[in-house]
């Protein structure tokens, strides 16, 4: 129990009659970086307000270090152990120093302590030289550093971040993410980091919670959630571009053969023959080769899966290209732009898509009870 900082249990909250949050259980552990990943309008910001004790949920229990929260008026003390920063810096009309000193002044800290702590945190965020500037004399990245310093100067137990890097350029974003994590570690601050960006989640997370329509669809270590998503919708959200419906036909010591339309896939899974499943493959795990019938006649490789298909589309994103391949089922692979050029792949070319059995994640399709009136949509049929 001692290592759980804040805990929500059976928390339900609504706005204007619409339920926006339904959290069965959520724990924030001491010293961890928990990323809450979800699309816009899925209740992420409401969750943060509840965690910040600024919004009283309609139902449920909130515990701080194992203790149930006191009545509303006595919460300030605990609330003051928590700080929050947002996507926009929202700085005050005052110097950088005064902005950062704000939280300490609210807590009536002595002047010498304020000067020492503000100086220290500005140093940690590498903005000591900005102390006397006004917010309008800082760049976007600098202003966000000020905002984060302002939240962290009080040395909170818990830092809440609402899309803190979403407005920044990729390079600045990466630098700040790195510095932020260093500061959090050096101050031993737990952090709940809300974002819609899985790149950011990848950069910072220890654990990830996927939130869908106010509910936590999956929570676990970063690798677990990204490489072993618990449901098809989570898989789609964490960047699994290839999700194919199939059925297990063979099973031998954890290596299964799964029949899909026009082919089969080998995967590491315990599911039994007859089980209906979804096959998930991350795009970076798929290797693309141009198809040459002579070469492929005697071709051997360690990857268990080789699917022949036709390129249906290529999209380049900077140094990376996304290749859509129709192998009976649609596959998406990411390869470097350079490989794309070397292979000379064009639309409608025939290619071989290969991937290891260990790169395949299998989700058992849930049995969806048939609705009373309309028939099931074809794609969801179990």
């Amino acid at each position, binding site marked *: 129990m001692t290592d759980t900082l804040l805990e929500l249990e059976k928390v339900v909250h609504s706005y204007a009659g619409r339920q926006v949050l339904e959290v069965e259980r959520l724990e924030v552990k001491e010293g961890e970086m928990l990323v809450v990943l979800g699309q816009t309008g899925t209740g992420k910001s409401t969750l943060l307000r509840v965690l910040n004790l600024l919004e009283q949920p309609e139902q449920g229990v909130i515990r701080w270090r194992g203790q149930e929260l006191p009545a509303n008026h006595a919460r*300030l003390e605990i*609330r003051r152990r928590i*700080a929050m920063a947002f996507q*926009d810096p929202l700085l*005050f009309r005052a110097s950088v120093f005064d902005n950062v000193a704000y939280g300490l002044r609210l807590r009536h800290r002595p002047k010498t302590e304020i000067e020492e702590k503000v100086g220290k945190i500005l140093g940690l965020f590498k903005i000591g030289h900005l102390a006397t500037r006004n917010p309008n004399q800082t760049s976007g990245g600098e202003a966000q550093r000020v905002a984060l310093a302002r939240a962290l100067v009080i040395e909170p137990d818990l830092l809440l971040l609402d899309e803190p890097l979403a407005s920044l350029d990729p390079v600045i974003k990466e630098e700040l993410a790195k510095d932020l994590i260093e500061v959090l570690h050096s101050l031993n601050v737990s952090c709940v980091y809300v974002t819609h960006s899985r790149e950011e989640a990848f950069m910072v997370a220890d654990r990830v919670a996927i939130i869908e329509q106010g509910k936590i669809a999956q929570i676990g270590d970063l690798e677990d959630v990204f490489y072993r998503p618990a449901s098809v919708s989570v898989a789609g959200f964490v960047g699994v571009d290839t999700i194919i419906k199939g059925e297990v036909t063979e099973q031998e010591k954890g290596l299964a053969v799964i029949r899909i339309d026009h082919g089969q896939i080998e995967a590491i899974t315990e599911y039994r023959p007859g089980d209906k499943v979804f096959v998930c493959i991350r795009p970076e795990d798929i290797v693309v080769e141009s198809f040459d019938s002579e070469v492929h006649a005697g071709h051997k490789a360690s990857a268990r899966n080789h699917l022949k298909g036709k390129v249906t589309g290529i999209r380049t994103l900077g140094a990376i290209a996304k290749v859509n391949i129709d192998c009976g089922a649609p596959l998406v692979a990411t390869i470097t732009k350079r490989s794309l050029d070397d292979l000379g792949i064009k639309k409608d070319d025939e290619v071989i898509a290969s991937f290891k059995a260990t790169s395949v994640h299998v989700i058992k399709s849930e049995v969806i009870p048939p609705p009373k009136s309309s028939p099931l949509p074809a794609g969801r049929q179990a």
Partner: protein
Amino acid sequence: MNVIWQGLVEAVKLIIRLDPEVLTVLFLTLRVTGTATLIALVLGLPIGTYLALNEFPGRQPIIALINTGMGLPPVVVGLFVFLFLARSGPFGSFEVLYTPTAMIIAEIIIATPMVMGVTVAAIQALDPRLQLQIMSLGANRWQFFWTLVKEARLSLLAAVAAGFGAIISEVGAVMMVGGNIKGETRVLTTAIVLATRQGQVSLAIALSIILLGLTFFVNIFITKAQQGKR
């Protein structure tokens, strides 16, 4: 031109001499307008902030009423304060008519809607996300209010300047409820009216210059507070 020149000379003499009568008028003016401005702020800032931040039925009519109040004719205010404070009126027993208190009451009624109305607009003009940011940094209710007021200070100090300017230059209402009694309720504006009527033009000009100087002086402070720490 000669008259005006004489007035200027007279004004300088009065000011250098520190004429006791002029000083009395000057201090009373400062006391009445200062007190009224302060009370208007104490009433206007929190109520205006509350109206800006909270939704409740009847809020819009109240704001409309306040905005109307910003343009209240001072003479009408004077009339009603007079009627309420007159011996036969509902508050006649307090016997404050023709005292500085009556003048302060009238000026509060003139200045408060100005402060309140501008506060509503100024607080509403702030980024609404700032409220959550302030609370999430650990502010209590009072600190929350004070931070918002500080963030809106550019507009709010303009309101203070406008409110103060309106009541220091006010004649009609203070004349009606104060009575322009020498040494008791005579302020700069009413003294100017009287001097002009009595043909003491140079005295009237001297008092006008003092009034303008005083307003300017106060506005220097307000502007410093407003622009100083941008």
